[in-house]
């Protein structure tokens, strides 16, 4: 029987489903006739080569979809391509005079980028006019934040832009900044502190216990998108 004849035979067999199962996309086997029919183009058998091609294609499709979805997404769900805010924040780190640094840095001996402060210290700085920065996601910020705190969601793509806006709004590099996220387990504050340090701010404090602690103590909290 020629290949064409076999194909015809297969097409004519009344119950294709009961007769045949498909060992690979290009072939159909019929146990009754013990024959393997070619139902597709030549050379479509299953092999590791073919699997490799498939994995490559799946990766390309996934990468394209990932990129496309990121382009058409709302602001608060967009992701910076490489690193949150890395492209937007130009490293304008200016050398801080040694004398000034010694006075300003709260942990001069450790040389850390930022000082970790307790709730009481945070509250004291709140009273003395330090600027609070909320590193959490936009949705968390809108659900409730420390009154007066500005939103710089460190994981969203425009974190760098918001830091630039901070400077444009006249927040000087010497300003005391207190950064917080949602508690001791989150590292968003440290991440944001790093970015702020890159931008040239150097009086950085991280309120480690963060928003849940502040809220629990009954200190000023407001909701909405405004500081």
């Amino acid at each position, binding site marked *: *029987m*020629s*290949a*064409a004849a*076999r194909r015809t035979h297969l097409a004519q067999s009344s119950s294709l489903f009961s007769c045949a*199962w498909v*060992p*690979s996309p*290009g*072939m159909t*086997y019929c*146990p009754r006739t*013990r*024959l*393997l*029919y*070619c139902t597709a183009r*030549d*050379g*479509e*058998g*299953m092999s590791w080569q*073919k699997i*490799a*091609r*498939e*994995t*490559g*294609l*799946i*990766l390309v*499709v*996934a*990468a394209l*979809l*990932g*990129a496309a*979805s*990121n382009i058409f*997404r709302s602001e*608060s*769900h*967009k*992701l*910076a*391509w*490489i*690193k*949150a805010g890395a492209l937007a924040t130009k490293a304008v780190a200016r050398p801080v005079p040694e004398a000034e640094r010694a006075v300003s840095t709260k942990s001069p001996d450790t040389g850390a980028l930022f000082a970790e402060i307790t709730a009481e210290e945070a509250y004291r700085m709140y009273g003395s006019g330090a600027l609070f920065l909320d590193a959490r*996601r936009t949705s968390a910020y809108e659900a409730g934040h420390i009154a007066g705190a500005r939103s710089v*969601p460190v*994981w*969203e*793509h425009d974190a760098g832009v918001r830091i630039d806006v901070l400077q444009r709004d006249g927040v000087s590099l010497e300003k005391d900044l207190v950064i917080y996220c*949602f*508690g001791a*387990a*989150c*590292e*968003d504050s440290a991440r944001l502190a790093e970015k702020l340090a890159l931008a040239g701010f150097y009086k950085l404090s991280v309120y480690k216990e963060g928003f849940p602690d502040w809220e629990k103590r009954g200190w000023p909290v407001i909701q909405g998108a405004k500081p």
Partner: protein
Amino acid sequence: MRQILENRWLSIAIRLVLGALFIYSAWPKIADPPGFAQMLSNYRLLPDGWVNPMALVLPWLEMVAGISLIAGIMRRGAALWIAVLLVVFIGALSINIARDVGVDCGCFSVAASQKSHAELIASMKLDIARDFGMLLMALLTLFSPIAWKKPPGASLRGACASD
């Protein structure tokens, strides 16, 4: 055993379940890439520059592979991807258990849980067990004899070669 492995309906069922699980797990990550990027960085395994590209592509990889499995299009490639991903997930969880770092799995949700350290470690172990189960399903799909074996007596020659 062979009989079970060659059961067509079983292999279809496995494919559908595995595909559905991957689509289900991909969805929240696709919906919130910054949240997933945060999860990824919590694992402390990737260099900083890799976190965001991975957070964009990985969920779609799960989604496309899941859809492929269910639709039966490129299902070997999809099964291979899923197996590779599961091995990576198991590795990532194991490393963090080994160094006693509790992380949210980020498997089926990207919301940060408020679990304690001990709870996190315990649920990571469960996640690993579940991943092994899914890995078995992926390998069954990948190596299912239904797609690989030439049935005894079946002749390939003349069927596909001479057209």
